[in-house]
């Protein structure tokens, strides 16, 4: 294989991320301790620069396999890579002033490494590459979740996340090995063809499908592999929880989507039924459990589970519209949930608590922060004219379009339950009074910047939605 410049173009974002990681490492060594917070600015700015520099790396309309079939250079992978880079930049801004997190260079480095993993995950076209990418994503995240080693909850979060992750990834790996055995190839795009030629009984294929699904369900926190997420989100540093619940989850979704569509086209009926059942269970359970939460991070954790359920509708209906709607849903969800967790991080920094009682009368302490929370939560709840509404509209529409009106009905009923608990938080924020009303909640500059970008984003995605939807459609079309 002869290397030339054009071969590096498809992995330009990853290369730039590695370079940024190196810069962060060097800065961590040379900068005096007091200025370590500024590494956050460097990371965020670096992510912004990478976004711009990656424009030439955008794929052609025709997807292509690169690097010996290890990666697939297509719009789906590229779009989500861009989203992860955006999410990582925002997370860096939120982390800068978060307790001891922002002053530690290794935090930023681990996050960058994890982002590289995600970027590879969403473009992986080979079982080996996919497994490596998943682990590259996960291992830094295990460490990040348990970053505060003196905090029991944080270490518990890290350890729990690790145990769950290791177990499910082992099961998934077993599924991969079976597939390799059946097909004799590790390339995702050739497995289906080989299996078909081999005349394998459907039962064996369904078995391996279920095994790999375990690993993906863990990533997206789908029922029944969701148990880790509330504890992990509650215990891990809030910016990390935000990153976990958005970028990591979205990466899981893309892999799930690509794998199911490409590897198992002959058993769509079966996996469609499994995913449908999972979707219903995930959104219903997530919403019902979110109702009773007293801690806002746990509430957001369960709400994230519920949102995975809504997004799964887009996969379950197995149609072009469904896939586009899922991609759109993930874009909206990433922006909105990052905002929600970021605001919680900003509040928690001052109040020192993530209990809902800390949010009493918040609108009087910081009207702008309260407004941002209003926008974020209402978008999660699916109120027009915010992004979350359009996203829900599209996934429900996909269900109706696929003649699965009952699934849309369940989704709609769930949306009402969801409305209730988001509204409960807003009730505390806007309608309740507290003794601390005179104490303003100060928001630092990086937090202000990040929250503003996200809030404007939520409104823009909800109103000027055609470019976003076209983008989602282009990305979705490139799966096949």
């Amino acid at each position, binding site marked *: 294989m002869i290397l030339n410049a054009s071969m590096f173009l498809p992995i330009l974002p990853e290369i730039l991320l590695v370079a940024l990681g190196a810069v962060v490492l060097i800065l961590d060594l040379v900068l005096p301790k007091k200025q370590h917070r500024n590494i956050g600015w460097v990371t965020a700015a670096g992510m912004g620069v990478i976004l711009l520099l990656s424009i030439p790396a955008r794929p052609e309309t025709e997807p292509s396999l690169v690097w010996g079939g290890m990666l697939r250079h297509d719009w789906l992978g590229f779009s989500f890579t861009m989203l992860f880079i955006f999410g990582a930049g925002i997370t860096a801004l939120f982390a800068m002033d978060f307790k001891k997190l922002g002053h530690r260079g290794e935090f930023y480095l681990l996050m960058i490494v994890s982002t590289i993993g995600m970027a590879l995950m969403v473009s992986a076209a080979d079982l080996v590459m996919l497994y490596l990418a998943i682990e590259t994503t996960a291992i830094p995240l295990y460490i990040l979740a348990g970053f505060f080693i003196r905090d029991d909850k944080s270490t518990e979060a890290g350890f729990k996340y690790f145990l769950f992750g290791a177990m499910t990834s082992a099961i998934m790996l077993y599924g991969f090995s079976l597939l390799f055995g059946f097909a004799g190839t590790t390339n995702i795009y050739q497995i289906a063809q080989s299996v078909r030629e081999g005349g394998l009984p459907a039962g064996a294929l369904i078995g391996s499908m279920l095994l790999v699904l375990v690993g993906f369900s863990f990533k997206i926190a789908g029922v029944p592999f969701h148990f880790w997420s509330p504890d992990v989100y509650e215990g891990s540093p809030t910016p990390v929880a935000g990153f976990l619940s958005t970028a990591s989850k979205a990466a899981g979704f893309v892999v799930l989507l690509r794998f199911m569509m490409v590897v198992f086209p002959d058993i769509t009926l079966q996996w469609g039924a499994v995913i449908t059942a999972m979707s219903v269970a995930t959104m219903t359970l997530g919403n019902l459990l979110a109702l009773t939460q007293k801690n806002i991070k746990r509430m957001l954790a369960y709400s994230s589970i519920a949102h995975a359920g809504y997004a799964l509708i887009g996969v379950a209906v197995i149609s072009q519209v469904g896939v586009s709607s899922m991609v759109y849903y993930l874009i909206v969800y990433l922006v909105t949930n990052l905002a929600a967790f970021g605001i919680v991080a900003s509040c928690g920094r001052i109040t020192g608590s993530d209990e809902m009682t800390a949010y009493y009368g918040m609108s009087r302490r910081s009207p702008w922060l309260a407004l941002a929370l209003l926008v974020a939560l209402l978008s999660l709840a699916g109120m027009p004219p915010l992004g979350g*509404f359009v996203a829900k509209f599209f996934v429900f529409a996909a269900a109706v379009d696929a003649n699965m009106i009952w699934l849309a009905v369940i989704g709609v009923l769930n949306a009402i339950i969801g409305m209730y608990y988001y509204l409960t938080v807003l009730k505390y924020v806007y309608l309740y009074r507290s003794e601390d009303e005179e104490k303003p909640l100060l928001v630092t500059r990086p937090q202000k910047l990040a929250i503003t970008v996200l809030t404007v984003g939520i409104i823009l995605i909800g109103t000027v939605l055609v470019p976003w939807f076209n983008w989602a459609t282009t990305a979705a079309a490139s799966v096949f």
Partner: protein
Amino acid sequence: MNYYIDPLTLVTFFPVIGIVVLLFLRADQKVHARWVALITSLITFGISLAILAQFNPANPDLQMVVNIPWIQVAGWNISYFMGVDGLSILLILLTTLLTSLSILSTWTAVQDRVKEFMIFFLFLEMGMLGVFLAQDLFLFYVFWEFTLVPMYMLIGIWGGKRRIYAAIKFFLYTMAGSILMLLAILWLGIYQDTFNVPELAAMGGIPPNLQFWLFLAFGAAFAIKVPMWPLHSWLPDAHVEAPTAGSVILAGVLLKMGTYGFLRFNLQLFPIASVKLAPWVAALAVIGILYGAAVSYAQKDVKKLVAYSSVSHLGFVMLGLFALNSQGVQGGILQMINHGISTGALFLIVGMLYERRHTRDMDAFGGLWKVMPIYGALTLIVVLSSMGLPGLNGFVGEFAILLGSWGAGLPGGVLGSPWFTALAALGIILAAVYLLYMFQKLFLGPVTKEENRVLSDINWREILTLAPLIILIFWIGLYPNPFLNLMSASVDQLLNAMQTAAVAGIP
């Protein structure tokens, strides 16, 4: 490229200009905030008058139409489509007028977080105008849901003692209904390939059994909003706990979103189901009329009495609309306006009393006429208008509705039963009972409580708030033709279209 903004977009989004100005004010600039909001709402009212001047009553179709493609991807056909016709023009005027008067009424009543209050109020106005102007189902739904949040905040932050309970109940009730409507909208958009309301209406062709389900899904959202018995239980809580201005808008405009929804969407889009279900809707409406009146009579709290009277009055509107003939529908639309004027005025009146005495218990008053004669006289006019005294506005609407409900409308067996009319007429008598009872308890007889002797009569600002409504009460009562002329062409066209569809659809 021209920079001309069409009038409907302008009127809908003009309040946003006021909101932007308000955002730059400091929290302690209360007076400035009030003036900014008032001027904004007055200009919006002015724009709506300009729209009226441009409006051609002889044209039954949508006018001043703006139709810009919005979401045309993946087979969706969603556009930013606004238009006004005879069914909505009066509601636009009512909305902008009542918003201005409500803001004027808060001058001294709202002291806490004035800036935020005004911001939410103007957002609410924008949402309501959008609801009445949108002609695309998606756009309509966006505005429809948009009104929820500001109203939730108005009730929840500036309301009475049980404000939080009332706010959440209001929100969830409405949300639950409207999300069913969302499903129906999705179905229409996907299987009929457009969200464009006039196109959908003209297309027809929805099988009768599906029409039935779609009618119910839309109807659930609207019936909760109206509210029709037995879905009314959010209303007394919301009305009683809301601040005065909130109650005025809630009763005056938000409830009309429900009746307007039936008129614009259910009747137009599902004519066969409408014809078939009309007797049932009418029966619920009549139950609402009697129930609302009976419960009103039992109230001790003046505001609650007025709140329950809304259930009764809106029952009349629904009866009129589902009479499905020209008198009934015109009476129904006029009665929407009348109810907005009379009940809006009643809430303002109750609010003025509450501001002085901080109670609304009827037993705490008596003989107020002697202390506050101007206030008493104005109240009497409004009370008489609300109970439908000939010569005042309420009579015109209710009479037309009764007339319509007696004379049967469309083929396929609609009302036509004098029973509905008779029972509804009983409702008018009951209205006289509870309203006069209230008036007597408050104003007549000797002054029973010492603290009532020192109450000041209403001031110039309060008179100014009520004056436009009083003028309208007489105007509509004595010379309703200009108002009926505005709507008659559109109503006739709607009924003709329904007739054609129903004849074709019902074997």
